């Protein structure tokens, strides 16, 4: 089961990455450029021929390919994919809409994230689609594994469906205004249960009130281009324990609580960003003295089809059964357009 899903993730990634890798080869790029030039020349001829009859629209040649993704946003301005599948940083969703589609087009990203601490491993993979630079839909699966007895065979999985809508501002163009780009979002999470822990098969047995829950959030992203700085603040209403891996609500608290999440990134250049994040967490379970998460990351955008995030993460101790503060490495790969 474990092997199968791992293979599945790699297959998905390989399928998505294949055209990307192919596209980056020089021959392919040249062929594409030539095709574009032919298209432009054709459009120019067409407009020259038709200029007497009907005033042609500039760029009419592009209209026939209007259904093609335009890759029109500037590099890195779609962010990366965070650990729950939404466009953002590493731990936190941002107000940016994933992918490189402008408001006239669309974009998408597939991600595979591997997070490993002393005693646990978290894998996340999924796809996210950005529509008209306005709406983002995401699907993600999280798999959480233990590697230290008595949790050595532990496995918990969770499905997350995300929806995000940009409601105001533009992070890139509004350089003369204080208004950040603002988005609202929701994450619909369903915990699929626990295996490898004997009689414990549900998060409810660990004290959670439910195995499903919805996070609601509001994100504000401000790009301070003159300072090469990106700032994000997210306010999340949540009941989720360890993002939902340990269920929703609990014996200590079963109400929605507002949690702040903060990110700051310095753009070393347009392909490289260095940043930090902090994510507050609720404490709903007697069996888990849940801690806030934080990380320091380096995101690399070699091109619009590919990005990689490397981070150092601190997750705190996870459940009373292992009091060790968990720290480790976070590696995420995104492929898309």
């Amino acid at each position, binding site marked *: 089961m474990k092997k199968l899903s791992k293979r599945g993730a790699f297959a998905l990634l390989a399928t998505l990455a294949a055209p990307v890798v192919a596209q980056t080869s020089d021959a392919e790029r040249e062929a594409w*450029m030539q095709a*574009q*030039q032919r*298209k*432009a020349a054709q*459009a*120019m001829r067409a*407009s020259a021929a038709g200029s007497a009859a009907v005033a042609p*629209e*500039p*760029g009419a*040649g*592009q209209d026939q390919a209007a259904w093609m993704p*335009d890759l*029109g*946003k*500037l*590099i890195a301005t779609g962010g990366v994919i965070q650990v729950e599948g939404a466009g953002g940083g590493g731990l936190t969703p941002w107000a940016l809409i994933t992918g490189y589609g*402008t*408001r*006239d*087009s669309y974009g998408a990203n597939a991600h595979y994230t591997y997070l490993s601490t002393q005693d646990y491993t978290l894998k996340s993979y999924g796809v996210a689609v950005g529509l008209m*630079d306005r709406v983002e839909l995401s699907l993600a699966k999280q798999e959480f594994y233990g590697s230290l007895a008595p949790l050595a065979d532990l496995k918990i999985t969770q499905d997350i469906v995300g929806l995000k809508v940009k409601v105001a501002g*533009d992070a*890139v*163009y*509004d*350089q*003369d*205004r204080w208004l950040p780009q603002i988005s609202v979002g929701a994450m619909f999470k369903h915990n699929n249960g626990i295996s490898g822990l004997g009689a414990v098969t549900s998060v409810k047995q660990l004290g959670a009130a439910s195995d499903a829950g919805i996070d609601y959030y509001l994100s504000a992203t401000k790009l*301070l*281009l*003159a*300072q*090469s700085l990106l700032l994000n603040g997210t306010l999340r209403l949540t009941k989720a324990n360890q993002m939902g891996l340990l269920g929703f609500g609990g014996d200590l608290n079963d109400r929605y609580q507002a949690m702040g999440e903060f990110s700051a990134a310095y*753009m*070393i*250049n*347009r392909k490289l960003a260095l940043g930090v994040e902090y994510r507050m967490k609720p404490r709903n379970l007697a069996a888990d003295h849940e801690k806030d998460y934080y990380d320091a990351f380096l995101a690399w955008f070699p091109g619009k089809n590919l990005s990689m995030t490397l981070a150092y993460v601190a997750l705190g101790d996870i459940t009373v059964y292992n009091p060790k503060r968990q720290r480790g490495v976070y590696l995420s790969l995104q492929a898309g357009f």
Partner: protein
Amino acid sequence: MINFRMKQAATALVLAFTLGVAHAQTAAVPDDSLFRDLGGLPVIQQVVDDFMSNMLADTRIAHTFKDSNIKRVKDKLVEQFCQLSGGGCVYTGDPMREVHQGLKLSNADFNALVEDLQLAMDKNGIPSRTQNRLLALLAPMQRETVSR
């Protein structure tokens, strides 16, 4: 008590004076640090030269210049970049909205132009943080130039 109030008043006075001087100074000597960081007029001219070459070779937006006097566009761009960066030039071209109306430019077109400018600045050795300072001044022009 009186002593405290006097101190407060003195502080306020000093503060007002400092701010006043600071204000007067900014009014008298405009900040030309970006202009200097870009490398002054010769580098700006070279950047604009490369920028225009990039755009004319860029199949995404080359067609938007088919009715343009390229020499004039370049001159106006130099004036504009020089003025924006505090170099003391005056932009004598037509208002941005007027220049671009009818072209029906999209955000993708605007961003293609930005990418061509970034490559031109790369070529002339302008560091990323300096590039971004200029781009921060140009970015809001999206509202005046994009009409589609």
